[in-house]
């Protein structure tokens, strides 16, 4: 199976602080992978390197074989991102926000219109298209952000704690929507979270702590390897949480 994301031996420092230490990750096309770690584990730093908000000075990051550092344009074309912080412009309407994103990817107005209708229809928010983002609920804003991240038809979707601060209904709806997208097409998803209940059996999990990858593989493999009964227990054991 071809690789959607290939990270090899990436280390990143802020001054003397080592935020990531020799991180290697591989995600295949069609994979739904959960990047599981506590707050401050290094998830957002890793995302910032993949999206080239930060420059990776060591190792390599490739998206569909395009090196992020050397061929950032081709690499970034293939990524859709939902950041941890909300990034929609509250003073603009949903439609205006989506057109703006389409223009940042060089999509024509006619194409953008078609894609906006398609994506916004998929998340059942077509009636909110003309509404100001400010008037939407937290869950609706997140869904708009997901729709926006898919407008340019990326091959790899990165979501950084997309359900933080949302009620359980919105969380489940978003999770279900993204998992469905992953199953349908050739989209690979890297879902960063610290919420263990977002992980289903059979999914691939990468456990990160203090900037290091502690374990990687499907849920059952990690449970078996750590000799625990649940993924929660396995995670607690790996990161050293004692209850």
């Amino acid at each position, binding site marked *: 199976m071809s690789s959607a994301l290939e990270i090899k031996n990436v280390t990143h420092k802020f*001054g003397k602080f080592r935020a990531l230490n020799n991180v290697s990750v591989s995600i295949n096309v069609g994979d739904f992978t959960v990047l599981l770690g506590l707050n401050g584990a290094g998830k957002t730093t890793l995302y910032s390197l993949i999206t*080239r908000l*930060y420059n990776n000075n060591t190792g390599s990051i490739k998206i569909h074989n395009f090196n992020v550092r050397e061929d950032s344009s081709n*690499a970034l074309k293939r*990524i859709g991102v939902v950041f941890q*912080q909300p990034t929609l412009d509250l003073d603009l309407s949903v439609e205006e926000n989506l057109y*703006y994103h389409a223009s*940042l990817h*060089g999509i024509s107005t006619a194409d953008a219109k078609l894609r906006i209708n398609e994506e916004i229809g998929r998340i059942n928010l077509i009636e909110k298209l003309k509404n100001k983002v400010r008037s939407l609920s937290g869950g609706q804003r997140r869904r708009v952000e997901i729709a926006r991240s898919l407008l340019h038809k990326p091959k790899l979707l990165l979501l950084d704690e997309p359900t933080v601060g949302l009620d359980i209904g919105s969380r489940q709806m978003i999770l279900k929507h993204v998992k469905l997208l992953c199953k349908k097409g050739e989209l690979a998803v890297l879902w960063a979270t610290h919420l263990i209940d977002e992980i289903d059996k059979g999914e691939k999990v990468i456990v990160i702590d203090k900037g290091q990858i502690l374990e990687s593989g499907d849920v059952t493999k990690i449970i078996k390897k750590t000799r625990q009964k649940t993924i929660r227990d396995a995670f607690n054991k790996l990161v050293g949480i004692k209850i």
Partner: protein
Amino acid sequence: MSPIIYFRCFRGIVLREALRFVHQKERFFSALVRPLVWLGIFAAGFRSVLGVAIIPPYETYIPYEVYIAPGLIAMIQLFNGMQSSLSMVYDREMGSMKTMLVSPIPRWFLLISKLLAGVFVSILQVYAFLIIASFWDIIPPITGYFTILPALVISGLMLGSLGMFLSSAIKQLENFAGVMNFVIFPMFFASSALYPLWKIEETSEWLYYICFYNPFTYAVECIRFSLYSQFNLEYGLGILIFSVIFLILSILGYDPARGSLQKKGGK
């Protein structure tokens, strides 16, 4: 990447800035109130105190209001540039800046587009100011309304890129107040905006040199000459050089490989 992709991106960034401008009407009015207060109150009080001799581009004695009008136009652009950089720091703190920075379009192009979008907004404000200023008998030759345009673009670009560079160096929104004290006020007062350079030279030679090498003076004088359909090579070249320097600094500031953001762990 084809030129049409760049064009669509540029159009999108300008359109967004224009929409934000339309949605934030109070921003437009507050940008106009500031120079009008200077024109209506400050200039009225000082017109008898500060006499202005005949200096180019003027061909006769002029009222003080006419003298400070180009300085106030540059002031609109200075505040607009700083307002844009403030919104960039805010966007960065709030995260919306990231959506732009992860675009596949080269970052230098995105930043220049954002700068030009800001310049476009400031030009609208300047023309609105010029219309209102005509009630104070500040009426340049009709050609001046057209010849000022290139000067406004280049001075807006210079002041905007200075603001952008500052925004790349400022990590938190709270630190922006320092910019007011250490950049905006010294730049405005130590320039030819409120008084001619020869008058400053009479008082203090070292202050004259500070004013003379202040980039804002070049913006003010370029606007002054172009408003009267004249071109001054010295100021024209100066503003161009300052623009290029600030532009390079701001692009480097947002370069992931060199910028200050990554060193500080900012986002």
